[in-house]
């Protein structure tokens, strides 16, 4: 196995695409063939030790990208290298160097205690016993596994199982860890345990982390870099701050008044977003005006009881990002040809 030079990208894709042919009903016996571009030309470079949040609305192509990076799906076109390897052609070699947690697809033996799964995985990944024991010891302490190591996986709670999955993905000391929605469905405590663990793992600096999530708190806590995709394309790649700047997400000033005003005040550079509590609470957005401009402007027209300044919310930014119209030619569905193919019962188009 060739070691990648330290400064070489761990993940590199160029114009990566994945198209699916789906058949949709077009009359009683007719099926229309459509080509759907799930991933539509993604360029991505990730260097060693980075923690990348990969987000996008449902169906944006997140999981499809992850599956092409891990060798599960063959790309339709484009170039992809992970740890210097071609994921599909060199799938088994790559598998020794990456860890994967697909929330819905367990790596654990359903009927066996966690401890047995971990032991079997040591053989599957050919990990020297001492290394394996050291990593397991660390995971046991940090993920608090001791209480359920001897319970069959089928009897574990989702939170316990997810901690088990994380351990299973790390026991061979992967260079890259791919996580597909690692906190989905977890309660607050498990979610924090998983997040805290991943944060420490990332802070150590030698594991590259790529995670998809719908929970933006995961991203804020874990990832300095955020890649947002929509309709199979990258619409943002950079820090969270850069996202706020680029999409003009704004601080808000929330002002509580003694008495409602007869006329809503007009402040230059700070539009009124909404009025609450029968006009006693006003919410302004700081566009070109600063928060102090807003406060000063308000104080001239009303008696202020309280002032709060609210930092921009990443949820809101991302929601706006998803709604931003994409260029016309990136429409995900392209009608290619309509053929009247024989009806195939149950041929699912997933």
């Amino acid at each position, binding site marked *: 196995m060739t070691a990648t030079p330290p400064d070489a990208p761990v993940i590199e894709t160029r114009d990566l695409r994945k198209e699916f042919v789906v058949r949709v009903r077009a009359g009683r016996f007719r099926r229309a063939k459509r080509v759907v571009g799930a991933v539509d030309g993604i360029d991505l470079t990730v260097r060693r030790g980075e923690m990348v949040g990969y987000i996008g609305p449902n169906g944006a192509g997140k*999981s499809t990208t992850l599956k092409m990076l891990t060798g599960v*799906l063959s790309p339709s076109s484009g170039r992809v290298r992970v740890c210097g390897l071609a994921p599909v052609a060199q799938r*088994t070699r790559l598998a020794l160097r990456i860890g994967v947690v697909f929330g*819905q697809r367990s790596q654990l033996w359903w009927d066996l205690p966690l401890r047995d*799964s971990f032991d079997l995985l*040591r*053989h599957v*990944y050919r990990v020297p016993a001492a290394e394996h024991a050291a990593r397991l010891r660390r995971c046991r302490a940090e993920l608090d596994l001791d209480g359920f190591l001897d319970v069959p996986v089928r009897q574990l709670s989702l939170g316990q199982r997810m901690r088990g999955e994380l351990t299973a993905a790390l026991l061979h000391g992967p260079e890259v860890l791919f996580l597909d929605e690692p906190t989905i469905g977890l309660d607050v405590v498990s979610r924090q345990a998983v997040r805290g663990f991943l944060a420490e793992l990332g802070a150590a600096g030698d594991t590259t982390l790529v995670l998809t999530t719908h929970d933006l708190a995961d991203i804020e806590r874990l990832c300095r870099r955020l890649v947002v995709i929509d309709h199979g394309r990258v619409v943002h790649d950079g820090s969270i701050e850069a996202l706020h700047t680029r999409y003009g997400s704004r601080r808000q000033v929330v002002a509580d008044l003694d008495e409602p005003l007869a006329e809503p005040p007009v402040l230059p550079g700070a539009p009124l977003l909404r009025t609450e509590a029968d006009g006693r609470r006003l919410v302004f957005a700081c566009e070109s005006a600063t928060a102090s401009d807003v406060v000063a402007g308000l104080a001239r027209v009303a008696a202020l009881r309280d002032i709060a300044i609210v930092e921009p919310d990443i949820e809101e930014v991302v929601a706006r990002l998803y709604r931003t119209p994409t260029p016309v030619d990136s429409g995900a569905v392209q009608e290619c040809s309509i053929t009247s193919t024989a009806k195939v*019962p149950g041929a699912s188009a997933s």
Partner: protein
Amino acid sequence: MAEWTYRLRRGPAYLALLRGQARSQASYRTSFVVDLVSNVGATVLDVLTVLVLFRVTRELGGFDRTEAMVMVGLSSAAFAAADLMVGNVESLRQYVRTGLLDAVLVRPLGALPQLLLMDLPLRKASRAVFGAGVLVVALATAELAWTPGRVALAVLTPLAGVVFFGAIFVATASLSFWWIDSGEVGAAFTYGGRDFTTYPMTVYSGWFRALFAYGMGFGFVSYYPALALLGRADPLGLPGWVGWVAPGVALPAAGLAAAVWRFGVRHYRSTGS
């Protein structure tokens, strides 16, 4: 590192998968025993069907009971062993439909061996033992004129048969990479093939016999080897050496099945999320 040493080093990993499967099944001890017993049933029925036929007729397609039983033995020994080792590849359909194959593909092992070992139906072991038993009894009662060549043939043929049936299992299961509802189509060739090889080929006729026996090769794993073992000429007119071609049919079939499998894996689409 040379490719073969790389592959060789995976041996212990596959053993671990087998161990995991054995331990998992042992966690349901009672049902395992019940399965073990009830699984002999299917093969017993195959044999009984043939024996019952000979209650109403003295000959079947020109062969008497002991001769037909050699074909039954070759067929059931090969099929039951292949079913034990490879038959479970049928579960591929479930893996593809649910996207569970993702979890298989992210491991550092071949997808097919993993699939076979992770779900190896150990309860079918009883059936394989019974199938081999049928062959031994059939060979013993047929009062063959044993020569070293015939001994070799009697060993080689069932082994080739296992490879051949295994290839059919893999090739038909691979259909589900493209077509998830392919289950019954696959069964037509796997179980249909077994049924075809159970009886002397002379009971079939026309295009059906030509397709299954020669087109797909089912004729070469039990009927023709049985003729060679019994020292009988082929009523259908093929020369005697055809009885020896089972390995020559089985190996290309295995190669073809492997190619279809590999092609199928590349076409795996997974599921949403």
